[in-house]
């Protein structure tokens, strides 16, 4: 099967010179900084997206931070991370020796935070690109950027000015009109968008009469959100000219293909990394097998024709 993936043209361009060997990436917050995944076949990965990184180290939220929901999970990690300095000094040099590109996911409370991280990582060997998490629902005020097209554009523009790195903006689904936010960040200079981040949700411990998570609410990920994520990608792909990366509940090759058929140029696997570390390889192989069976020899042929038309139906 590996053989098959190798014979097909499954390379993906994300703009600004960022090219991936394949369309399967791992999503932010589900793969650490790439070091804690002994069972993963790194050669199957198009890219690794790191945990959300802030200017200074963060301790994260008090436990309980996660809970299970039907076909999904809630998390409120609170951006625990070692800070950009540690990332640039300790991690990037190691990444520089890897074949797989590493994209740093960036988070913060203020535009200045994002700019600071972007500046620090600009030109650092081993850092292949940035993904702006403008949608983390767990940090006070962090929610704002992704909810408002104007704010999202302002943030994107500021980071765009601060770095030559390829720039992906990760969209939140907790909005009335995700396409409006997508259009705004495209106009502001984003090279690509990724969609979606988690849905805001909560669970209550009925026996103890209190929310399961210490923060009350958290972000919902996993198969449960797949139909909504797919709808978002379908709409974005129809309306934007920059590449759309599909994320949300992907666990099987068929799930990934739904996103590629909906118009995504690549996908990110998140929660499934916790469940089956071998999924990334399986998904890549499954995509290759599908292309082979349906006689597609490159990914660009996959999207369903008429996506643009049907998205308006």
């Amino acid at each position, binding site marked *: 099967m590996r053989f098959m993936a190798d014979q097909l043209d499954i390379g993906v361009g994300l703009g600004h010179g960022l090219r991936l060997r394949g369309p399967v990436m791992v999503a932010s*917050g*589900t*793969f*650490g900084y790439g070091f*804690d*995944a*002994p*069972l993963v076949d790194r050669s199957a990965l198009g890219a690794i997206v790191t*945990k959300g990184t802030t200017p200074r180290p963060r*301790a*994260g*939220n*008090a*436990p*309980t*931070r*996660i*809970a*299970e929901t*039907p*076909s*999904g*999970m809630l*998390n409120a*990690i609170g951006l*625990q991370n070692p800070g950009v300095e540690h990332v640039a000094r300790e991690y990037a040099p190691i990444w520089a020796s890897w074949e797989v590109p590493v994209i740093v996911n960036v988070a913060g409370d203020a535009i200045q935070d994002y700019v600071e991280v972007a500046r620090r990582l600009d030109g650092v060997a081993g850092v292949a690109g940035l993904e702006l998490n403008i949608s983390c629902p767990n940090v006070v005020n962090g929610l704002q950027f992704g909810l408002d097209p104007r704010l999202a554009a302002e943030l994107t523009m500021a980071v765009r000015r601060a770095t030559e790195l390829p720039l992906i903006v990760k969209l939140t689904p907790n909005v009335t009109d995700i396409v409006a936010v997508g259009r705004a960040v495209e106009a502001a200079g984003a090279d690509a968008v990724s969609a979606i981040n988690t849905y805001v949700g909560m669970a209550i*411990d009925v026996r103890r009469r209190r929310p*399961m998570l*210490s923060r009350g609410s958290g972000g919902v990920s*996993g*198969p449960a959100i797949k139909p909504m994520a797919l709808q978002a990608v379908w709409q974005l792909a129809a309306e934007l000219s920059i590449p759309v990366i599909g994320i949300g509940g992907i666990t099987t090759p068929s799930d990934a293909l739904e996103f590629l058929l909906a118009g995504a140029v690549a996908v990110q696997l998140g*929660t499934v*990394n*916790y*469940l*089956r*570390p*071998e999924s990334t390889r399986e998904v890549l192989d499954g995509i290759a097998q599908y292309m082979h069976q349906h006689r597609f020899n490159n990914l660009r042929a996959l999207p369903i024709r008429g996506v643009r038309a049907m998205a308006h139906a």
Partner: protein
Amino acid sequence: MIVAAAQAEVVERSTPMSGATELVVHHPPSASAVQPGQFFQLAVGAPHTILRRPYSAAWADPISGRLGFIFNVVGAGSAWLANLPEGHDVDLLGPLGRGFELDGRDPAIVVAGGLGVAVFPGVVRALVARGRRVTVLLGARSVAQLMRSDRFAGAEVKVATDDGSAGHHGSVVDLLLDQVGGLDIFGCGPTPMLQALMRAARRLDIPLSSIQVALETPMGCGIGTCLGCAAPGRAGGYLLTCQDGPCLRADRIDWDHMTDAFHG
């Protein structure tokens, strides 16, 4: 080191004490690699669940290639596991985390509350195998929930029950008061029990650094990537149960801010 995410056959299923299930699986690489106190993430196929469930290896035998898991049914995942028929496979990821440090000053004192006992058969076996003197203090709601003392061959076993139906009528932590020495303690149980253990240790002038605990917090990945298994550290910030633990020295934990796991 993790040896595998692999299918292991369930070769035996039994009831080690009232309400609990013991699953014995056959998986030689895991049985050889696991250290006492380490855990595995077990995949469960219960409807609507997605996360793996963390379970300590209760014991492992490298020669037969077998290892055991002991647990009670608290929710959908454990109910599914408890119904796994012999001959079927269970999907193991592990061994994971850090086990106990087995060397220390005799006697080794094991303090187990409720299902916290599940981690100890293999630990005690290993301690005894090193020639150590071991006392096991077992606490349970009632006599029926006590693990049989022959699971701790070579160790002295004392028991306490909430209802007085066997041994001391009260908390297992009370039994510590009668111990002489006790500067190498291994504890596992519900958070309130561990907190009581810390209070008792302070009263008895036992340094928390001489207590090792096996923590239980909700887990996502079990391998350090989700940051979901945080436990408050005494030095500030958070420890990760799956990386810094589950077995660690009690003085590293901020017990005042330690929440109990979902089912306490």
